[in-house]
């Protein structure tokens, strides 16, 4: 019996907490409908990591993280694709949706033309970002940033 009472009490507490915090949450939530953000993941050879990071940065990209990794394709496949080393860099970039077609076509062209510059790139849509300043930073929206006086 005491367990049931305790459970009821807990439920009441939870209900009370949601009643007070829910409106704040709803009021503070904004939905971005146009020009949303995407995560662009680019996998390239380590020697070309800086080049590709600079290239992507030129498309109003303010934040990029590069991690080092290695490819796992077998030796036969590497020869088939004309690749010779498996040391890779993975570049994670936050990019605006309307810049994606430009980025993708630019990367595709560079992957084909640059020596040792082959790679793979793909985008994943972001579902949420917390903080308006962070969002402005990531989407390079300078209007909303207040100037220091």
């Amino acid at each position, binding site marked *: 019996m005491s367990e049931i009472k305790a459970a009821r009490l807990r439920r009441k507490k939870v209900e009370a907490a949601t009643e007070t915090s829910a409106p704040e949450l709803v009021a503070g939530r904004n939905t971005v409908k146009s020009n949303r953000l*995407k995560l662009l*993941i680019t*996998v390239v050879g380590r020697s070309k990591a800086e080049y590709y990071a600079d290239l992507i940065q030129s498309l109003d990209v303010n934040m990029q993280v590069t*991690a*080092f*990794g*290695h*490819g*796992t*394709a*077998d030796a036969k*496949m590497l020869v*088939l*694709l004309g690749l010779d080393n498996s040391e*890779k860099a*993975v570049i994670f970039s936050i990019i605006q949706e309307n810049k*994606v*077609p430009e980025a*993708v076509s630019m*990367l*595709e062209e560079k*992957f084909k033309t640059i020596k040792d510059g*082959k*790679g*793979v*790139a*793909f*985008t*994943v*849509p972001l579902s949420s970002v917390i903080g308006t300043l962070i969002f402005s930073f990531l989407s390079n929206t300078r209007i909303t940033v207040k100037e220091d006086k």
Partner: protein
Amino acid sequence: MDGKYEAIFCIVNAGYSELVMDAAKEVGARGGTVIHARGTANKEAEQYFKITIQPEKDIVMILVPLSIKDAVLHAIYKSAGLKTEGQGIAFSLHVDDVVGLSPLSLSNAENPEQNK
């Protein structure tokens, strides 16, 4: 190419990435990228569930055609899932734009039957 690919991420204990790749390749994946990482866990939960989380991790990132995504996830779960030594967690993300894949993988994505 929209909607035809999924990115599978698998977080395993360091040194087990080959196990993941072998399982994925068996069901048609071509290649992946391994990133070294450090995992964090809730110490209290670790004690409660009597498990230890090895902090050194490998993240295996595999781009696969949508048609074989379930098979790859299932194969990874079987060979490197949480109940195995690899203690792997795998999930997939929908991918919008893909560039740079070899024409061979692209033709396989369009005709998955050829892959079998």
